[in-house]
């Protein structure tokens, strides 16, 4: 608010009192917020709970906010260069200075770096004078260009994903993170069909993930079915559960729909938790069989009598990495299947009907589209992909319990879809890299990595409120040689 006011007054030069006042107000707000949150700490003394004050922390936090605000004001008032130098200095100094807690240190460094980045941007091109709309449009153009480039970025990314396990830096943990990210990319692409294309806000997607995982685990446990038999069965069962849920729910719209799916996700989890005889309850199911090499060979050092192991089959030395790499390729193939399927189906009548449904479902009815069937199809297909991902998850972990299928998983998958830009396939990849990759990459920061995660989310939503890559590609063209976007841009520019 204060920033807006002073921008409008367009003050020339520096106005020290106004500046101090603005920074002071900010510091006051910071004080009001940090005093109860940081300043008072409850401590167990014996059996009693007492409050111990932490005033140094409050003072430092308020001081940081005050200094930071002054930095921002100076950036705004075209003093970007000195701010850049000073903030970098502060960031470096904060690295070595002793802080009473590590959190304050992280905040100080991160804050100083953000101010430095802003100052750098301002110093380079006076960007801070850009209006929100202009910035939006610039980012849209960038997004459109990225999507245009998807023609070659896609294959390159796939190629990179294929050779990744054989890169010199690819140790066990890199491939493990790769598997994790690919699992979420697959889930994101699956949910994208429901949320991005059909426009149905599904808050319980993890239910289908759970159905898939438990399908495999239970089928293997009770009937000794192999992974390759269970994979299609798990998909089928998940799709069936999608249809069962879909029938009563799909007449609902918007918020009501979201609430019911949220409830369904919880119902599945609670049933799994309480049906102890069948599902193992909170103890979960362990000893889930690992996948074999397409039923031909196992990834064992010493296979049972009469069977052959993977390393024997290929005449190479045994390496536990073989199984990990195989799992990596398995999820890569599954995810690419989902992607290929979605890209194809968007061009078919049912896929186009999904998008039309998202735009205006009354118009859809007036065009003779059977809404219920179309929505059910979206729901069932997305559920099936969730089921595939679930049975992969079960075979990779070897152990599952209801713990793995809480609401936060649904929220993360949804966040990937929304942050990526609803309906954008490549957006899902970028968002999954950020949301899953960043916290993994910053694992050393321990609990503060969630801070980095939250900051990333806030920044994306400030800069790209409609998602990173929100541009939608037309599915039908009359002049296929020129890109659809060019045609669109040309005709819209002629307005």
């Amino acid at each position, binding site marked *: 608010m204060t920033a807006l006011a002073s921008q409008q007054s367009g003050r020339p030069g520096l106005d020290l009192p106004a500046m101090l006042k603005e920074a002071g107000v900010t510091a006051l707000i910071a004080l009001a917020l940090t005093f109860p949150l940081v300043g008072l700490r409850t401590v167990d003394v014996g059996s009693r709970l007492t409050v111990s004050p932490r005033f140094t922390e409050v003072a430092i936090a308020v001081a940081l906010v005050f200094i930071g605000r002054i930095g921002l004001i100076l950036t705004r008032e075209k003093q970007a260069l000195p701010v850049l130098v000073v903030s970098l200095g502060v960031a470096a100094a904060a690295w070595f200075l002793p802080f009473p807690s590590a959190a304050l240190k992280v905040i100080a460094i991160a804050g100083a770096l953000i101010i430095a980045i802003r100052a750098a941007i301002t110093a380079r091109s006076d960007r801070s004078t850009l209006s929100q709309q202009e910035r939006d449009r610039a980012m849209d153009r960038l997004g459109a260009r990225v999507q245009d480039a998807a023609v070659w970025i896609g294959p390159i990314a796939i190629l990179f994903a294929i050779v990744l396990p054989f890169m010199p830096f690819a140790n066990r943990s890199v491939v493990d993170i790769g598997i994790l990210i690919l699992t979420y990319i697959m889930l994101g692409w699956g949910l994208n069909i429901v949320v991005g294309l059909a426009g149905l806000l599904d808050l319980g997607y993890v239910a289908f993930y759970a159905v898939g995982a438990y399908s495999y685990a239970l089928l293997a446990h009770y009937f000794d079915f192999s992974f390759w038999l269970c994979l299609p069965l798990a998909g089928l069962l998940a799709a069936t559960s999608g249809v069962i849920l879909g029938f009563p729910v799909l007449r609902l719209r918007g918020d009501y729909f979201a609430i019911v799916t949220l409830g369904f996700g919880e119902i599945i989890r609670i049933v799994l938790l309480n049906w102890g005889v069948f599902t193992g309850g909170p103890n979960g199911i362990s000893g889930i069989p690992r996948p074999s090499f397409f039923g031909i060979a196992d990834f064992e050092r010493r296979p049972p009598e009469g069977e052959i192991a993977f390393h024997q089959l290929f005449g190479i030395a045994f390496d536990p990495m073989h199984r990990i790499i195989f799992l990596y390729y398995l999820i890569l193939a599954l995810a690419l299947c989902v992607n290929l399927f979605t890209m194809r189906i968007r061009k078919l009548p049912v896929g186009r009907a999904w*998008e039309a449904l998202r735009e205006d479902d009354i118009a859809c009815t007036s065009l003779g589209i059977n809404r219920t069937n179309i929505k059910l199809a979206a729901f069932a297909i997305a559920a099936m992909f969730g089921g595939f991902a679930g049975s992969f998850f079960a075979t990779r972990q070897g152990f599952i319990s209801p713990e793995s299928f809480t609401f936060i998983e649904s929220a993360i998958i949804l966040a990937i879809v929304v942050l990526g830009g609803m309906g954008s396939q490549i957006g899902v990849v970028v968002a999954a890299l950020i949301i899953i990759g960043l916290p993994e990459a910053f694992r050393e920061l321990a609990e503060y990595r969630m801070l980095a995660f939250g900051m990333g989310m806030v920044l994306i939503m400030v800069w790209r409120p409609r998602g990173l890559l929100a541009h939608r590609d*037309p599915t039908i063209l009359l002049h296929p040689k020129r890109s659809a976007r060019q045609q669109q841009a040309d005709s819209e520019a002629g307005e």
Partner: protein
Amino acid sequence: MSGQMREPMLKISGVHTFYGSIEALKGVDMEVSAGEIVTLIGANGAGKSTLLMTICGNPRAKSGSVHFEGEDITRVPTFEIVRRGIAQSPEGRRIFGRMTVLENLQMGSITAQPGSFSRELERVYTLFPRLKERQAQRGGTLSGGEQQMLAIGRALMSQPRLLLLDEPSLGLAPLIVKQIFKVIEDINREQKMTVFLVEQNAFHALKLAHRGYVMVNGNITLQGTGRELLANEEVRTAYLEGGH
């Protein structure tokens, strides 16, 4: 045309429709014969759009019946009604804003016979050359008049035998309104399309239509040929006073 003993294409008899406990249609009888343009005029809230929607089964008639080409469609699901040959350009146009003009038209042909797309597309582009110019553009970026053209074009893509138009002149400049009505006339004359037109713009609608109905508070109060209604004193004072 109405003198022949032929079964009318669309026959609405004694239709009552409710929104909750409010009776919006209080026993409506009307007919549309093949090849006609029939218009329904009336003030805001008279129940014109409700009647159009009731034909499509949303909301459903509580009593009475709707017959299309001799078959009772009163209880047929909405999407099935469209498949039987009734297309609707809904009130407020309801264009798919983020989809291109071409994609919008393609959505219209989703119930049409396979293989008819390019022929129908050509026909729509001949009627509305403007849409061809804009075919790669997103529906939401079109002007109001172009959106109306798109809504009509989209409805035509399903190869209907009966075209329902809900206030195509709503919020458009007089010149554009003229253009749109001209096209409706062309569709009727050249493609022998039967048109049922709901309008507030009584002057244009009655001039265009072969026959017209006047609706007041959920009842049909007057009917006659377009010319008769235009000359009718009651109609003149209620709907035509103050110019066109």
